[in-house]
């Protein structure tokens, strides 16, 4: 499976020496205008992680035991202890990335099967004021059509769903707070009804999750107090919930090789424990058990997953086309350079996205 993120550094729980972590591609140079300056997409080398985000997610997804840390009997740090993780590095060491860099990473995945799961803990702003198709959602559709399950974060803005999380064919994941006995939807977790489709599809643990960061990473340097005495770090967000879900999807595919993305989505939604909260979608993530799917053939599952086929209805397509042809151009025509990588520094998102403040000021009481 592919973790499309800031790269992945070796950790005791998941590393290249074990053979469970391999390097795929590095498109991060594109985010800094590499395409315009002749940078090549890098397919050879170690695509490590100077920022830390991708490492945190990869270890949540597939991290094994950590020496000196008790993660519970017969458990590792992550979910899918047998999964092989491919690093698709789309952001540089400052955490900077762009639509084109992410798309180039996804394009690489599309041509490198047997990758069958993509974990995408990333979000772009919606293309305009309305939900609509864009190249990112189209990429999700292409991957899904090719047999790749794409697990996407719902985003961390309450009341809306990020791009491409609003894509009906993505398996979109919100965050749940599982630190209390009764899980609840995290207050920041994105949710909404997009052209009749409820998003996210489900929620997974995404508050105060423990994982690893490279010691010299940007996040570790910026937030040293986030490290626990055990050496692990805590993080919250739909990113984390996405990584956990991707791990469960990998486990499911291990037990059901060749299951289509539609079958996977249906199984995940079907196994989820319902919650009395529409922001949770089908509910709380659980590993589909033998009673969840075996008596239903894949064809039926595909039809059951046709909530996504609303996408193909003429009205839906019309709405999408309208949405992205108007608002986007308002922005484009008014500026010769609406965005450059320089304007999107790590600093600009550290304040909102990585600050500990939202969680330590009483939201969770911790």
């Amino acid at each position, binding site marked *: 499976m592919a973790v499309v993120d800031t790269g992945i550094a070796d950790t005791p729980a998941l590393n290249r020496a074990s053979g469970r972590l391999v390097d795929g591609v590095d498109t991060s140079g594109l985010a800094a205008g590499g395409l315009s300056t002749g940078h090549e997409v890098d397919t050879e080398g170690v695509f490590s992680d100077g920022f830390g985000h991708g490492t945190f997610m990869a270890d949540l997804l597939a991290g094994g035991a950590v020496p000196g840390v008790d993660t519970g009997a017969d458990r590792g740090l992550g979910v899918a202890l047998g999964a092989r993780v491919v690093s698709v590095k789309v952001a540089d060491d400052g955490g900077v990335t762009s639509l084109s860099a992410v798309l180039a990473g996804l394009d690489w995945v599309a041509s490198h099967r047997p990758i069958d799961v993509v974990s995408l803990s990333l979000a772009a702003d919606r293309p305009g004021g309305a939900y609509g198709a864009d190249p990112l959602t189209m990429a999700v559709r292409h991957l899904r059509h090719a047999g790749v399950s794409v697990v996407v974060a719902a985003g961390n803005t309450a009341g809306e769903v990020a791009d491409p999380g609003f894509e009906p064919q993505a398996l979109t994941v919100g965050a749940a707070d599982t630190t209390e006995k009764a899980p609840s939807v995290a207050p920041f977790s994105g949710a909404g009804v997009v052209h009749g489709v409820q998003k996210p599809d489900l929620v997974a643990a995404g508050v105060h999750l423990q994982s690893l960061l490279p010691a010299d990473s940007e996040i570790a340097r910026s937030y040293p*107090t*986030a490290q626990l005495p055990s050496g692990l770090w805590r993080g919250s967000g739909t990113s984390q919930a996405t990584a956990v879900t991707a791990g469960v999807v990998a486990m499911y595919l291990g037990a059901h090789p060749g299951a289509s993305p539609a079958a996977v989505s*249906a199984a995940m939604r079907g196994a989820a424990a319902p919650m009395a909260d529409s922001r949770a979608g089908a509910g709380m993530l659980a590993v589909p058990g033998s009673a969840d799917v075996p008596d239903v053939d894949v064809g039926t599952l595909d039809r059951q997953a046709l909530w996504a086929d609303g996408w193909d209805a003429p009205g839906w397509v019309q709405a999408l086309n309208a949405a992205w042809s108007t608002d986007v151009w308002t922005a484009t025509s008014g500026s*010769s350079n609406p965005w450059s990588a320089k304007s999107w520094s790590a600093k600009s998102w550290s304040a909102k996205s990585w600050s500990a403040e939202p969680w330590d000021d009483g939201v969770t009481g911790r």
Partner: protein
Amino acid sequence: MQVRRRSPQVTTGPSAVVLAVLIAVLTGCLAGGSTAAGTARPPHVPTSARGAPVTAVLALTGNAPVAGPGVAVLAHLGGIGAEVVRAAPATLRTLRRDARVAGLRTDAPVRTSTASVDSSGTGVFPGNGSAHRPGDRRLAGR
């Protein structure tokens, strides 16, 4: 009539110049202005060359590269039906009406979806939080 600020990668042939002239004339007429020499206005710039080039991503209806006058194809992403191009905004606006283009968007920032790195207290391991009890629920008929 000149095509200005052309990227070295941009291809422009005689037909493109003719097209640019036609677009310029039509644009001028639609705007109610005049393109005739001798007015106080600056020389009319072909619409396809107006404005500094921007990087944009096209979603394609097929898999054929969308190349043309004023459009520099920076990357063809055939696996996901997309293309990264660089062109003037006016040229991109024209491309939007191209049958080969399902839609397009200027390049944009993408951020990770982590809400916070938490600074104190205990935490949970992901498996402990997923409340996994295999087989205790059946497919709910969706």
